[in-house]
């Protein structure tokens, strides 16, 4: 494997990691601060992508779609919170899982009714539609680099919000011990709403970013949701920093594993076996990594919760 190829795979892994981080950031806060398991978080990602597809089809501009989809994703997230999730905070985890799973089914079906079952496409913005020739015969799309840059900037902003602002301080305090924060006179419900809305918007943002490279279709958030859960478990529930590191880790392991595993297996096995075993192992790799990390650090890389 050439260094060029390794560089490309590294960039690909980074880009997947960034998307995962945007989804996992909201998920880890909601889980950490509110102790609420939201399986429907992937739905927010899908909503973001569909909003982008819808607005881009109407206006013909990706930038316009990006601008409008964010507040709309936020509004829809808050609407779901108001209608459904708010009534689940005090219930046990099983009921939360069941109810939010129901939300997945309803929203997936609703999207299908509104937009049809066929996958939609979002045109890539003209400005970023080119590519950078990294290796002969292959362009690395500028848009993917833009995703990495945009995602890193968002991560920086998020770090500033959580570490340097008063709301961020309350969020961190809430993740450590929510009842204590409430006892100190903070309106915990309002804090929950802010956290939830922000998380929904971040996932929606990830959906908008992914829309031009992936197909926009019902259920598109469900696959990423599983990886996002892996990310927050590895990173430590409630920790933004943990989610960031773990997201990049999972993105790199997933991407590099998929391209290197079959070659690695070829050292021990015949080519056709190596392909099969390599492909199978590559899809397990993320979960093996999770198991290994949890064996040494049961609370994740950056545990937050006290006691």
């Amino acid at each position, binding site marked *: 494997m*050439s260094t*060029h*190829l390794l560089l*490309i*795979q590294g960039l*690909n892994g980074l*880009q*997947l990691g960034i998307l995962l981080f945007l989804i996992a950031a909201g998920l880890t806060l909601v889980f950490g601060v509110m102790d609420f398991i939201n399986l429907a978080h992937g739905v927010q990602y899908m909503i973001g992508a569909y909003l982008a597809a819808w607005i881009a089809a109407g206006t013909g501009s990706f930038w316009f779609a990006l601008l409008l989809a964010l507040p709309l994703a936020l509004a829809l997230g808050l609407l779901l919170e108001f209608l459904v999730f708010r009534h689940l905070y005090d219930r046990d985890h099983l009921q939360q899982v069941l109810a939010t799973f129901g939300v997945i089914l309803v929203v997936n*079906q609703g999207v*299908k009714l509104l937009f*049809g*079952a*066929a*996958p*939609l*496409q979002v045109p*890539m913005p003209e400005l970023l539609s080119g*590519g950078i*020739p990294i*290796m*002969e*015969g*292959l*362009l*690395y*799309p500028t*848009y*993917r680099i833009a995703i990495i840059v945009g995602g890193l900037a968002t991560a920086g902003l998020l770090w500033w919000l959580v570490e340097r602002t008063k709301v961020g301080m309350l969020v961190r305090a809430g993740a450590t011990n929510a009842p204590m924060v409430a006892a100190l006179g903070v309106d915990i419900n309002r804090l929950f709403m802010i956290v939830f809305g922000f998380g929904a918007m971040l996932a929606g943002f990830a959906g908008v970013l992914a829309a031009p*490279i*992936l*197909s*926009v*279709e*019902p*259920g*598109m958030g469900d*696959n*990423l949701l599983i990886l996002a859960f892996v990310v927050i478990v590895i990173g430590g529930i409630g920790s933004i920093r943990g989610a960031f590191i773990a997201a990049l880790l999972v993105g790199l392991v997933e*991407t*590099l594993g*998929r*391209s290197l595993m*079959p070659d690695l297996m070829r050292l021990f096995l015949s080519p*056709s076996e190596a*392909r*099969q075993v390599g*492909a*199978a192992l*590559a*899809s397990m790799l993320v979960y093996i990594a999770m198991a290994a990390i949890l064996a040494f650090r049961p609370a994740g890389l950056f545990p937050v919760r006290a006691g």
Partner: protein
Amino acid sequence: MTGQLNKLGLDRRTLLGASTFAAVGLALPGLARAQAAPVKVGLISVLTGPQAALGTHLRDGFLLGLKHLDNKLGGRAAEVVVIDDELRPDAAVTKVRAAIERDRCDIMAGVVFSNILAAVIRPITETKTFLIGTNAGPSPIAGRGCNPYFFATSYVNDQNHAVLGAAANQGVEVGGQNKVIRRVIIITPNYQAGRDAAAGFKSTFQGEVMDEIYVPLNTTDFSAELAKIAAARPEGIFTFMPGGLGVQFVRQYRQAGLDLPVLSAFTVDEAVLPAQGEAALGLYTGTTWTPTLPNEQNARFVRDFEAQFNYIPASYAAHAYDGAMLLDSAIRKVGGNLADKAALRTAIAAADFRSVRGNFRFGANQFPIQDFWLARVVRRQDGKFETQHVRKVFENAVDPFAAQCRMPAM
């Protein structure tokens, strides 16, 4: 709460009893005047979940067929019971049983996916009900598992892949001239149909397979694989990426600036072309049918389909349309009498209808003997995208599994 439930349960039981009585009571005189009652067709298709777009094509194709027949099959009024298999074998079996036992469907048709067909074929054929498969064609059912109550209006899955292997040997157009493709990389999802696709392609391809890449079925980002392909510098790519997989693969392929000939099956068709758009232009596919095949039936089918449903039909729709036409011809041949199964089977096997594909007859394993085409994605004058036939690769092809079929007695 418990009281209410009990009451509900009792009510339901009473209802069930009453409906059974009604069913038995209605069925007896019904037998006597079988001719007058409508023919009921249970149409199995996937209408929920990410692959629902394919199922919608299938359903609309069949319904258009019925519309062209004035909602009659062989002169008898027809009624369609649409069954959503949800792409879940267990759900499909439950619903199919209900359709046969409760709704009393006379004939079943449809089925997009092979795993659903594998699940429902026994429950249907064991009741001596005919099943007209209009899409899935797994090789076991064409070979050792052939069944007197099963007919396919589609193909055996492997055939479409084999077309591309043969097409690569003959050469495809690259930069304005014909070029024989000698070195390819195969990339397919890592599941049974994906491995079958690779095997089907290799069964006819004479060049060198440089590498076979298997990706997880839920892959959304192919950038790692595309980088690998670019590094290996093959002369062409063979791929099988059904549904949303194909949308992502094709668009990312273009974004990566790769410009190799792509030979694909079930990857670029009218079900996903609206989402692939320009990225799919020029990609090759192996198929039994395209909207552009020049015959009268096809022209009418495509024109009326677009007028009614406002999208371009894919092969799922075309094969289902043929399914409706086939049933019409068979029921007409037996004078509307569906009770004589042997006569009905002979009538279906005659395939006395004009297919939108042109050449069409049934082989001994009750799968079609038909032509296969190399087709290419083009932009129509109205800006929409469709597959256009390039050349006939196989003529009157018998599938390679037909020889293994020892058709059991009815």
